[in-house]
């Protein structure tokens, strides 16, 4: 999307990418991440959300060496470079899987307006809060 297109419609649309699947059993997680990065490279306002088995995508210390696929877990660390600043993770999904925020990668972005200070990207939200976030997003894409 070009800047002109965004401007002519009055404001930049917010794109919410909802990731619901475990990372390495199918292509959804990797493809979803790539689509989000491509959108962000074209200056879409990108927000990520992780629910259900999707929360496993953010688990730290992923290792795919035994299944012979690319370990794209490291790529989540690039989201901040693409100016993505917000990741929502559903609290109930974490709890149901015995995970806490400490099990997730400590993802950060550098705030250009605050002397490049590193700030955390991950926000844990309840199912209710996430429903509201989805409701308020202009475009919602599911992976």
């Amino acid at each position, binding site marked *: 999307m070009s800047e002109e297109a965004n401007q002519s419609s009055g404001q930049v649309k917010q794109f919410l990418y909802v990731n619901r699947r475990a990372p390495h059993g199918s292509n959804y997680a990797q493809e979803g991440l*790539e689509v989000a*990065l*491509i959108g*962000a*490279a*074209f*200056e879409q306002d990108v927000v990520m959300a992780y629910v259900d088995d999707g929360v496993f995508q953010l688990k730290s210390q992923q290792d795919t060496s035994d299944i012979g696929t*690319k*370990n*794209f877990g*490291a*790529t989540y*660390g*690039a989201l901040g*470079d*693409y100016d993505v600043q917000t990741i929502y993770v559903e609290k109930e999904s974490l709890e149901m899987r015995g995970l806490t925020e400490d099990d997730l990668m400590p993802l950060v972005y550098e705030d250009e307006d605050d002397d*490049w200070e590193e700030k955390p990207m991950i926000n844990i939200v309840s199912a209710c809060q996430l429903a509201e976030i989805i409701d308020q997003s202009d475009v919602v894409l599911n992976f």
Partner: protein
Amino acid sequence: MAIEVNGQSFETDEEGYLANLSDWNLELAGAMAKEDGCDLTDNHWEVVNFLREYYDEYQIAPAVRVLTKAIGKRLGKEKGNSKYLYELFPYGPAKQACKYAGLPKPTGCV
């Protein structure tokens, strides 16, 4: 497609990007640049090496906007701008430098 260096042949895709990341070496980078009529200087290598390090850490080749910003942070403002990078890599800094770095086309590059 393939590229030949010192009698050895390396597989590439139709745009000249290396098929196997692990085939890459300094001579191969130089040979790919020469095919495009480009002599790699220290300034080129700075960018190529940066891209290889970025790929190593994040498993993707960064889009040009991301590259420009990151180079600026690493090497200073006089290098982290489109003009400087396009002078080095007239076919598009991310696209062309990624090729010489043996990486796939950048994520977010059409």
